[in-house]
């Protein structure tokens, strides 16, 4: 970390574990759960949020001294909405099938609480470079959870990763399926996303007792 001072490095490292936006700050749950049935969708969603949060934090941070505090929510919404439209159009142009899978959830990045939360809590009070690092850090923390959930749901639910079968062929009974393994179709249904996140929280708080709520 020669490039970054210790304080700046902490901005990126903290959200990855002990100050994770999803499991600790409880921000951005909505989109995190709905699209994680496939790993690919989770990754694309993470990249979209990384882009929106990184750039958005810088823009808000640059404007922080000229935004009147009464209308700051509307200003923030407009900044996010513009960035999200860019993401949406790029997805529609280069990954049309995927943008159909994500459906309205790309649009819902606008009201993803992570973004508003970081604008309010960090970008309004800090310079552009630090805000950029904070945005990247939080988006990566979000991405970690999304990718873990997506990984398990796709692996256990349909036996594939990124669409490539890794456990053998369920119809011709090769690989693990020859031993009598079955895909758990239930993992693909939405309630399981909640339960997987619940288990991640459980594991994380068992390892780090200071995070336990009373």
């Amino acid at each position, binding site marked *: 970390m020669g490039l970054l001072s210790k304080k700046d490095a902490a901005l990126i490292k903290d959200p990855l574990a002990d100050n994770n936006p999803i499991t600790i700050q409880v921000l951005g749950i909505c989109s995190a759960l709905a699209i994680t049935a496939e790993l690919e969708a989770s990754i694309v969603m993470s990249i979209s949020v990384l882009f929106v949060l990184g750039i958005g934090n810088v823009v808000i941070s640059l404007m922080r001294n000229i935004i009147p505090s009464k209308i700051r929510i509307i200003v923030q919404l407009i900044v996010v909405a513009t960035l999200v439209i860019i993401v949406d159009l790029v997805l529609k142009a280069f990954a049309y099938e995927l943008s159909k*899978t994500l459906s309205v959830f790309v649009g819902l990045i606008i*009201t993803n609480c992570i973004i508003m939360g970081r604008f309010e809590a960090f970008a309004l009070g800090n310079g552009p470079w630090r805000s950029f690092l904070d945005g990247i850090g939080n988006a990566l923390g979000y991405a970690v959870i999304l990718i873990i959930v997506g990984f398990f749901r796709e692996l256990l639910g349909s036996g594939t990763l990124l669409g490539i079968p890794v456990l053998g062929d369920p119809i011709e009974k090769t690989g693990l399926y020859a031993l009598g393994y079955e895909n758990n179709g*239930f993992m*693909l249904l939405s309630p399981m996303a909640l*339960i997987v996140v*619940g288990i991640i*929280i*459980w594991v994380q708080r068992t390892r780090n*007792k200071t995070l336990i709520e009373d």
Partner: protein
Amino acid sequence: MLEHLELFFKSIFIDNMVFATFLGMCSYLAVSKKVSTAVGLGAAVIFVLAITVPLNWLLDQYILQPGALSWMGPEYADYDLSFLSFIMFIATIATMVQLVEIVVEKFSPSLYNSLGIFLPLIAVNCAILGGSLFMQSREIETLGLATTYGVGSGIGWFLAILAIAAIREKIRYSNVPPALRGLGITFIITGLMAIGFMSFGGMLTGGDEETKEDTTVEVQVTPTDDNTELANNTKIEE
């Protein structure tokens, strides 16, 4: 009339905002510690959804859709402004929330005292924007149906937050493993409740099929639907 009822119950139970599409989870988790605050936020959500969904339906129908501008004259007929829908919807929602706040404060101070603090929260609640975006992607046909959809999904969200708040009030006296206390157990309970709500899935398809065919809500592309299909496919393959 029948299609209104059908859409109403479908949006409350089958496509429940929280349990089927996870919309509004952030405030759902943050404001569900006490039943009384949950009721306040839930009522505000119903109120705002009932106003913004029909309003955004009008915007979508007369400004944003491909060809929607033809009422201004034939030369505008091939304009497609749908890429602007995110920014238009969110701007409508933010202004409406502000307007509702001012009006309620003026005419009903008691209502303002109970709803007031929740209204600013609602502008950034995914359930509100989600309601408008689903209304758009499911191609709801008339203004009346859009209103029904808004009210129905608001009530669905209200039910969900009321239920979880009641459960969380009780669970405080239970012996939950320390690491699961608070957020963890709430997630798992919500998951179990969502499994429960899945049993409403067959509610509207149990009877005769031909009345189902002409409803607009059939053309939805939510991820959950794909998932159910996938799950069914795997079952058939077995």
